[in-house]
């Protein structure tokens, strides 16, 4: 109980303190200590509740509920102010509608509904809390030195770092609240705080582009929020109750309608087609923000609620539509990633794709699919945070986030390049986590009705994934003529965070059978009454592969010793030192190599033209399906 409240309230207290501190050094210390505490308590939470199943914490709804309502109205006023100031009428309209719904909910219908068990913790909450508490706080630590560099690189921008760290920690508070809330109205309160936080963080630099993209994110998420508010009103009027656990246990049409509405909110939050553009636009924010949004917060909140509602969605038409939206998003976003050379955009599309896979699993909703979904959530969080932070560090040292400019990074920044390679391997290669999860997803899809559609999507999607990651890896490891070592200027805190995350990546792969058997399987057993068991020999084989991958680099020592080094072949001409060759009439020419991007096949515009109408149609069918089910009922 105390642990839970500590995790929800402490980041908020830290946030307030950070808002008041002006000195860089004190801020660094406060962030560091708070991050350490949050991470430690998340691990403590694991130790305390890992084996105790679902534990409820009755909290009196007075005065917490009233307080949340007041804060919610305050947020609405703030968004209205921002909407008026930046003349964004959609934001104003959405906020007014939503506030009206919430006022109606609070004063008109919610009395009589008095939930008892407002907070709870179970194995899935623990997993989420670990992701938020460890990865989220590591990102905050990384941000200390990154933001200092950031303002040195951009003297034209106003230094709003107090505000920055305030929101980063508020974000953590909201995420903890979200994963521990059993009262859906409270969950919605935290949900809206994540929307607001991401809006403020994306607009951090206050440039025109940043403001435009932050409003895009805000509006899409407010639209989702509207559906969420609709779900609350439905529950209050039909007497479905506000408690998540009871609702899921009840199932049926009473639960299906709110489940679909909330899943729609989840689709907006986890940036599925047609709402993917906000997450891509969010990359205007400083890199730690992207890392936070993509790995441990925001988008994970979206898939979190959908996985929660998976048992309700299982085997229903709307659930199948949700799965299709996820599946097509996975396929198309993976294709778009091929055509991008901006590293942050590739990462963004890869996130959208992987979330799509999680959404597909949630929509299918069988215990096998959910097993895969939770593993995807875990491994994606680790890999993606590592990759974003590496790109951030590289960008500050070489002044570019373009993949082509990262050629030969292995010679210029060997350690960072190695960590990036580990992160990328984690995203698509055996025996690392994401691949295990995709494998599990294939097996889960085969056995459900019409699941073959997803198997086919996955087969093509993984092929696309291999292509864009491997060609990026190729740029990093190509050994170019030596230039200055760009790695010395990287700060110690950044090293600390990067090495920790890289270690976590390998550790998670080694420990995943334990994560599965101690956390995921008991949770699934409690909800579904079945579990997926891993074949022991496959686990052994994967560990052998991991071992080989760690041992084989030793061979480098031998290859460095007695091999004569030559220049690369340049078509018969004598090559000079730095990738030059003598062309026709004796002109000295330089060779530059670049990757294939296949714009004509996989361009952003082409794919969006397919994806957006397709997924809008699926959403319409989803709502039609649930409306029909409601009428028949």
């Amino acid at each position: 109980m105390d642990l839970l409240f500590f995790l929800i309230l402490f980041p908020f207290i830290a946030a307030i303190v950070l808002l008041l501190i002006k000195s860089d050094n004190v801020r660094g210390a406060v962030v560091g200590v708070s991050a350490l505490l949050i991470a430690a308590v998340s691990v403590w939470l694991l130790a305390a509740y890992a084996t105790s199943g679902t534990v409820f914490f009755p909290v009196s709804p007075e005065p917490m509920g009233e307080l949340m309502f007041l804060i919610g109205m305050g947020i609405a006023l703030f968004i209205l102010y921002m909407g008026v100031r930046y003349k964004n009428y959609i934001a104003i309209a959405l906020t007014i509608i939503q506030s009206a719904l919430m006022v109606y909910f609070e004063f008109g219908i919610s009395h009589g509904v008095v939930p008892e068990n407002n907070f709870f913790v179970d194995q899935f909450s623990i997993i989420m809390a670990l992701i938020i508490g460890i990865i989220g706080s590591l990102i905050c630590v990384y941000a200390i030195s990154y933001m200092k560099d950031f303002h040195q690189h951009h003297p034209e921008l106003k230094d709003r770092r107090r505000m920055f760290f305030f929101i980063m920690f508020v974000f953590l508070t909201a995420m903890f609240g979200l994963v521990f809330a059993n009262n859906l109205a409270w969950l919605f309160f935290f949900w809206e705080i994540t929307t607001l936080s991401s809006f403020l963080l994306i607009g951090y630099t206050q440039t025109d582009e940043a403001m435009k993209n932050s409003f895009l994110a805000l509006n899409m998420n407010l639209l989702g929020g509207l559906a969420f508010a609709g779900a609350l009103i439905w529950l209050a009027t039909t007497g479905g109750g506000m408690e998540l656990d009871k609702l899921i246990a009840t199932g049926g049409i009473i639960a299906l309608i709110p489940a679909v509405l909330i899943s729609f909110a989840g689709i907006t939050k986890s940036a599925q087609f047609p709402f993917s553009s906000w997450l891509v636009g969010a990359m205007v924010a400083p890199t730690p923000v992207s890392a936070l949004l993509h790995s441990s917060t925001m988008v994970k909140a979206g898939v979190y609620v959908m996985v929660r509602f998976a048992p309700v969605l299982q085997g229903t038409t709307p659930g199948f539509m949700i799965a299709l939206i996820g599946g097509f998003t996975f396929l198309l976003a993976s294709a778009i990633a091929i055509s991008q050379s901006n590293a942050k955009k590739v990462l963004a599309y890869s996130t959208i794709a992987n979330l799509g896979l999680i959404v597909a699993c949630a929509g299918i909703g069988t215990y096998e699919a959910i097993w895969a979904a939770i593993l995807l959530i875990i491994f994606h969080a680790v890999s993606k945070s590592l990759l974003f932070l590496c790109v951030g560090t590289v960008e500050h040292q070489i002044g570019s986030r373009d993949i082509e400019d990262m050629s030969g990074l292995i010679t210029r920044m060997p350690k960072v390049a190695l960590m990036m390679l580990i992160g990328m391997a984690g995203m698509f290669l055996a025996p690392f986590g994401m691949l295990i999860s995709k494998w599990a997803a294939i097996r889960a899809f085969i056995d459900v009705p019409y699941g073959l559609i997803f198997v086919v999507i996955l087969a093509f999607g993984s092929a696309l994934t291999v292509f864009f990651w491997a060609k990026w890896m190729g740029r990093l490891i190509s050994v170019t003529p030596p230039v200055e070592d760009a790695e010395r200027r990287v700060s110690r805190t950044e090293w600390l965070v990067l090495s920790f995350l890289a270690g976590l990546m390998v550790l998670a792969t080694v420990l995943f059978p334990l994560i599965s058997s101690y956390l995921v399987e008991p949770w699934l057993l409690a909800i579904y009454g079945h579990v997926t068991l891993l074949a022991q020999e496959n686990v052994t084989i994967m560990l052998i592969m991991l071992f080989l991958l760690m041992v084989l680099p030793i061979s480098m020592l031998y290859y460095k010793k007695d091999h004569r080094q030559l220049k690369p072949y340049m078509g018969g001409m004598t090559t000079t030192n730095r990738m030059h060759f003598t062309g026709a009439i004796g002109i000295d020419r330089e060779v530059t190599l670049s990757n294939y991007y296949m714009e004509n096949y996989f361009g952003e515009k082409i794919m969006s033209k397919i994806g957006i109408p397709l997924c809008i149609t699926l959403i319409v069918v989803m709502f039609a399906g649930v409306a029909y089910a409601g009428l028949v009922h």
Partner: protein
Amino acid sequence: MSIIYAVLFLLLAPIAGGLIAGIDRRITARMQGRVGPPILQPFYDVGKLFEKEKVVVTSSQNFYVLCYLVFIALSGALFFGGGDLLLVIFAFTLAHVFLVLGAYASNSPYSHVGAERELIQLMACEPIIILSAVGMYMVTKSFYVADIAATKIPLILFIPGLFAGFVYILTMKLRKSPFDLSTSHHAHQELVKGVTTEFSGPTLGSIEIAHWYEAIFLLGFVYLFFSWSPVIAVIAIIIIYVFEIFIDNTFARVKWPLALKSSWLITAVLGILNLAALYIIGGLLK
């Protein structure tokens, strides 16, 4: 899992693979009106490569080739040991990614282009290989190679579409024309050796050995389609291989977009139709 078969694969596959390569060269020569080299020529070639000077552009490229060899051998061993077919496929992909990385590492223009093309081929082949495994699972209810190999059901009759798609990409995997885009066995296709341009001596020899392992693994995959009758399976493998040689000698290399588009189209049409048919039949039988 049977360790014995895995070990036998590790020991015998290079010998069998080398012999097949020798016979391949002989048949190819006859098709071109030449006498051709002795059957054992591939072994002489590789033996000679191992005596050559160790020359590199960058020492890391040898590391990637070593990983390529190790993981190709591992995926073959898992396959012949009767392991999980999906895991085998993933290990096989990992191995190829290492070959591609080795080619990228040297930062040489020719091997760079070779690497990009090898990746495109990887992308072209992956879907049908996974779908074939899925098709085999749908019929036999198991992903384990041991179970699929022991089945009494004539798989080929249930998954002919997947088989056709697999044979199509087999041309790519065996580096045969018209899909020998990333590197070719034939001098008439290219002057510079694509993905293998910057490898020489023992490293090139290792790639050759890995290729022998790969060939045996792929033929083993073909075997699974016919596994209910070993005799028919062996005959099928011989026919398929001779057919591949014939194709190799009658087609000129195509450009990569055609290779990618055609293999994906075939996968999409034949693969999906075949799986859909299986699904419907499965539903009717229930």
